[in-house]
């Protein structure tokens, strides 16, 4: 569990380092073409310098991410498919941001509010909304968020985000909202 705790930010930092590294080697190729007689002399130095720069950039990025983890995430709602409670892949970034925030702020408490669209019966939707909240709770808990920081409350279809019976309205109402207390 302890290992899991920081795996996400570190994995991201590693990916970033890799991207920066690639950029460096391409530049090196370009400079080789332009100034041929300096290549042998500067190649090793340049490689070392590039690697150093990449390391510094990655470290700065990681530091920034840690600072960001202390800041409130910007997106507070994720959406679900009809009669489903599994998390759609496009929302993992949002959940990771909340996980980082909650871990960086152990005193923060969040209510995960599960909601459904208006179709189907009210009490069944109450159960479905809870399932959605629990999906988010389970994911955050796997990232290392303490269970004491989270509570799931389902509102079913009782508090729609938007009124209306259109497909779009329904899609916007099938959601989990992060409600920090």
């Amino acid at each position, binding site marked *: 569990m302890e290992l899991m705790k920081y795996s996400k930010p570190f994995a991201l930092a590693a990916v970033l380092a890799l991207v920066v590294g690639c950029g460096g080697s391409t530049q090196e190729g370009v400079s080789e073409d332009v100034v041929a007689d300096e290549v042998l002399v500067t190649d090793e130095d340049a490689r070392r310098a590039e690697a150093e720069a990449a390391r510094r950039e990655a470290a700065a990025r990681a530091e920034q991410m840690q600072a960001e983890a202390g800041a409130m995430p910007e997106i507070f709602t994720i959406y679900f498919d009809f009669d489903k409670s599994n998390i759609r892949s496009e929302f993992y970034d949002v959940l990771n941001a909340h996980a980082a925030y909650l871990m960086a702020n152990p005193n923060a408490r969040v209510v995960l509010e599960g909601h459904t669209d208006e179709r*189907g019966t*009210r*009490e*069944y939707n*109450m*159960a479905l909304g809870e399932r959605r909240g629990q999906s988010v709770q389970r994911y955050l808990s796997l990232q290392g968020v303490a269970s004491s920081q989270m509570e799931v409350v389902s509102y079913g279809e009782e508090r729609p985000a938007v*009124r209306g019976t259109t497909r779009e309205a329904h899609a916007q109402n099938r959601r989990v909202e992060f409600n920090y207390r």
Partner: protein
Amino acid sequence: MKKQWGLSLVLLVGLFLSQWAQANLTIRITQGNDQATPIAVVPFARDGVGVLPEDVAQIISQNLERTGLFAPIPREDLISLPSSARDVVYRDWRLLRVNYLIVGQISRSGNELEIRYEVFDVVRQERLMAERVTGRTEALRDRAHFISDRIYEKLTGQRGIFSTQIAYVTAEALSGRAEYRFRLHVADADGQRSRTILTSHEPILSPDWSPDGRRLAYVSFEQGRPAIFIQEIETGERFQLTNFRGLNGSPAWSPDGQRIAMTLSRDGQPEIYIYELEQRRLTRVTNHFAIDTEPSWSPDGRYLVFTSSRSGGPQIYRVNLSNGDIDRLSFEGNYNARARFSPDGDEIFMVHRDAGGGLFSIAGLNIETGRMRILTTSPLDESPTVAPNGAMVMYALMQGEQGVLGVVSTDGRIRYELPAAQGDVREPAWSPFLD
């Protein structure tokens, strides 16, 4: 002095009426029955009682019309206005092709009003009923419903539901996003004389009557999470029954009034539990990782039907409470939920969506034969509740973007709606017979 009294009484009545007028549900019949039996309800004669706050004959006429079994002829078609047997000429009523004739008169009897009424079989030319009831002026509407019950039972052999009540929830959007006012109401079965028994900014749902008709169990979010409450209707006295982690929902009173079935997710997933009020004992009934919710008691108290997603989507299951055996009842359609028993226990009424994934309708399912009948056809029908005589089912539907209540006879022959002037109306619960 007397005049002043009269005036202040009128003012007082006017005040109450205007209050009621705002909250009351008005009736709109959307589907009639051309096979209904024609009847004539003659305006009741008034003998020294002056102007009365209610038109008793009109109430009786509308009550009988809403059953779908009777078609009262319009008042302007009446060719005479008898008020008792001695004025009745059967030939006149045969010409109008009515099968039954109802007449009456209202007179003063001490501090009370006395209503005499008579019912005639025009075809057989005989008097079926001659009765009298008394009551104070304020109780005139109650008496009109009582008389309607008497006549209905005499003509059909089935107990009337005109003196029963309904509970329902309204939600009004307030200014600002996702701000609502939720209210729990109790009204006459015809939507009149509505009164608010609870107001909250948080959702209220799933009202259920105690079998004695004196209390309601319901779910309220007033503490920021769902909890089941029980409220005495007459006094407003209430207490919180449950406060478990997770869902606290779908309260359903057992027929003997001793137990309440409910949905709790305290063990992680929604399961059906039974709480014994006297012994304060909680027993878990279901145990499945799927959603189990919306319990409803069979009239004999031996079974619960409930909604479960154990087969994938929601379907209706039945649990035998003596041995825990569970069997699936619904097979047609990909969404069947929130079943309620008919009073004889033969049929359940539920929310049904066909396999094509179209409308959410109210359907009746015969438990023995498995035969299903679809009763309604608007897109988002829900929350069926069965009248205590089994003749009608009330439900919630969407009319454009407004929630209204609808009523359909269990044989589908007549349908009417009870919209409110403003806000969404939902979650109807039909009371048991009230004495």
